[in-house]
């Protein structure tokens, strides 16, 4: 099992305004598998993704990646795991505006010191970004920016790709293209994919789906 989370709990706020977002969530994802997490706004799906991505720490529960409990890691340890094992794709793309497309794609691979030129070339080819490698994010369309974000997330060949509403800012056609690419590339790299989405159409393209309601899986 690549990822295993057990009884994750997370609340925000304090005192009487404290609100539980996740209430004992457990799930597991195998290597190369793709999982869609769906749910209403505020159901806790992004929070769950952030916890699995080690961007935030749970109040209770355990997160295991490759049979290692990562719940107690400090900032440095969590950063190291993100760098080497996890790729992230956000709804807002979150590209570095001052870096070129190529530098953005290479960024995580460089941080992880894991550059594979042949893989990067194949990636940019498949993502159809070769014509705009020297451009900057502000010069790209939304679909192109998200393809750059996908390229960046997969450049270091992570074992796990986490995508938070990756098509939420894109039109239907572009969404379908980006999703196709993500799935193909994950399959090629044998990367597991966990994707949070509102779209049932998108969710159905993945191998497995779970639904989150009121902080619990149903």
């Amino acid at each position, binding site marked *: 099992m690549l990822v295993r989370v057990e009884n994750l709990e997370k609340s925000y706020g304090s005192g009487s305004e404290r609100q539980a977002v996740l209430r004992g969530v457990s799930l597991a994802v195998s290597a190369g598998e793709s999982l869609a997490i769906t749910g209403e706004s505020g159901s806790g799906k992004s929070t769950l993704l*952030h916890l699995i*991505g080690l*961007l*935030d720490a749970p109040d209770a529960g355990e997160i295991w990646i490759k049979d290692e409990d990562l719940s107690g890691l400090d*900032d*440095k340890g*969590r*950063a*190291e*795991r*993100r*760098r*080497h094992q*996890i790729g*992230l794709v*956000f709804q*807002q793309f*979150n*590209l*570095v*505006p*001052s*870096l070129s497309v190529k*530098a953005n794609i290479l*960024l*995580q691979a*460089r*941080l*992880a*010191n894991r550059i594979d030129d042949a893989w990067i070339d194949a990636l940019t080819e498949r993502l159809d970004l070769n014509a705009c490698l020297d451009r*900057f994010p502000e010069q790209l369309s939304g679909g192109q920016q998200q393809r750059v974000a996908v390229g*960046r997330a997969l450049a270091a060949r992570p074992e796990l790709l986490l995508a938070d509403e990756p098509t939420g*800012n894109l039109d239907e056609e572009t969404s379908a293209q980006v999703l196709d690419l993500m799935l193909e590339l994950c399959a090629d790299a044998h990367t597991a994919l966990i994707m949070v989405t509102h779209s049932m159409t998108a969710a159905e393209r993945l191998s497995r789906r779970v639904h989150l309601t009121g902080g619990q899986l149903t």
Partner: protein
Amino acid sequence: MSRIVFLTLLSHWRRKPGQLATLLIGLSLATALWTSVQAINAEARASYDAASVTLAGGAVIVLTAEGGDIPLATFTALRRDGWSVSPVIEGPLTVDNSVFTLRGVEPLSAASRTGGIAGPAGNGGGPGLEFFLRPGVLLASPETATALARSGLDLPPVQVSANLARSEIVTDVGVAAQLLGRGETVDRLLLDPEARAGLTPLDALVPELRRSTQAVSGEVSRLAGSFHLNLTAFGLLSFAVGLFIVYAAVGLGFEQRRGTLRTLRALGAPVSTLIPALLVEVLVLAFVAGAIGVVLGYGVASALLPDVAATLRGLYGANVSGSLAIRPEWWLSGFAIATLGALGATAQSIFKAARLPLLASAQPRAWAIASSRRYVLQAAAAGLLFFSAFLLPQIASGVVAGFALMASLLFGAALLLPPVVTVILNAGQAVARGPVAEWFLADTRQQLPGLAMALMALMLALATNIGVGTMVSSFRLTFEGWLDQRLASELYVTTRDEAQSAEVRAFLEERADAVLPIWSVETDIAGRSGELFGVVDHATYRDNWPLIVSETGAWDAVMRGEGLLLNEQTWRRLDLPMGSLIDFGGGPALPLVGVYTDYGNPNAQAIIGLDVLTSRYGDAIARLRYGVRIDPAQADALASALLRRFDLPANGVIDQASVKRFSLSVFERTFAVTAALNVLTLSVAAFAMFASLTTLAAMRLPQLAPVWALGLTRTQLARLELVRAVVLALLTWLVALPTGLMLAWALLNVVNVEAFGWQLPMYLFPADWVRLAALATLAAVIAAALPARALATRSPRAFLQTFAQER
């Protein structure tokens, strides 16, 4: 990984060269102004030290003759009698339009008298007296040596000494006499005050020579210390204004990179890598800005130093070289201050980066949104600073306390500025009519946090300008009035010797309304070395010498020989009540009956009746000068007659207007540096505003796009941006005005009294305020012009894109 993080952070500046330039210019300007002031101070101190090394390491008795020249035979006579005496010849040597002071000394006697003269450079700091034993060699600083070598003149060989002042050349007496075309005479003799027992008393041996104690360099250095503190304070203020720019630029840079920092962390760069990378970035920027700043500072210092030299000569009689040498310590201090400043200005941003929540929105947003709570805190801090400004004069004294008072006032007012402007804008919004006016005021208030730093910098510069301007103008007005009163005599006559003096006096008494001797003697007054004047009983003094404190019938008491008048600075330093007995040697002390203003004189001075002076000091008095009262219409004729009849020295007859002109020119040069620094500080503040407006303009589009969409044209928006800059500049000026006046009060009543010993009345100059308001408006318009023009010509697509990005 660290390298990748560092390069990613740097890529921001590559894409925003304007912002990088703003940051570097701000830090460079701050460093430059600070370095220039330090350079000037260091150069002045080096000149004092060099003067100290060249001649006289401590107190020296100086023997001079009335006519100016002392025969060499007199020197020989003193030496034969066993006195430790050394001759000095001094005169100007002109080389390629530069005038150097050529000083001839006798090596062996000077060595025993002064403890040695600086040896040639690279000599390990030894005395190097063997150099002087070789005939016909000049000793000069490296710069002077270069100038002499370039001149092509047929001069003796030059040896270099790094310890000599740059305006000086030292050689042995024989060579100096030859170069200056002198005969068998010297200018003065230096005498060891600790004479062996059994020597013939000087009064008997050389009765014709006058004795005085040479002001040692340490004294000059101490006196000029207040002036240097003044410059340092200005340097610090300019540095602070520059740091406001850096703070604003770094803050905006951080806000714009907030998203990048979050992304880097999300991709696996830990805080422990990000923060050192940010620190290295700051250090690199500080190094570059420090280097530029030191070079700029050298330029500023080179431009200001001649005026500073003139100031120090005018105020303290200190001789400072008018040219600048590059010293390694400036580079070090320049880099140090740039690094400290950059770290100080970026500390908050780095702290914020360390605590940046990983999951907050990564969208760029406007600079910190000011909360009312923050303004309350700022107002409270300002109140605390004002309170300490009020307390300081009551609990502490000294120039440093004076400057602390001014710093409290200035920074208190700076902190208070944003809350005050917010209150005014709120009030404006309450009475505004029409949607555009309401939006304009609300939007201005929203922009205030982003502009606050620049406005605070402008406020500091304006308040300083008003404060220093009021001080200088009040001083000028008082000084002119004082000169008008004090320079009552129509003519001032100086004679060559006492024989000529007696003839001139007799000549004048037949032709003038009154001849007022200006006779004095150098002596200790209340334990301080100073000058004691004797005056005759004449209405000129009663009518024209304003006494700031006096007993009834003070002048009568002086004329009767029963009282003494003291100059203000000595009176303040000694803190004496009226009636205190003042000892001035030669007999019993006299009671203090009055105090007169005596601007520009750092030494003690007192006035007594002429009879008392002559009875106590007799032959020691220099009886060479007179003030002449005559109908102004006949003054020129009398001056011509005097010059025809007598062989008077150069400038032997000076009319009242010339003396006033000269005094006022000294005054103007004295404050030339202050004026220059004032203008520079204002320019830096104007740049701060320009930098902030330019940087903010890039982030303003999302706020302006909806208003554009609702029907305001780009030109209208650009015009409103200009109006906003002017409104904010004028509001800043409004706060700066009372602050500047408080500053002027502190300068006139606290700092001047502590630094120079004189208190000045404060005058108001509303026309100057209006001029400054116009200048602030102009600076605001210039600063806002480029961003406004960019807005007016921005493509509609750019406005539309903001909506697309906000989706």
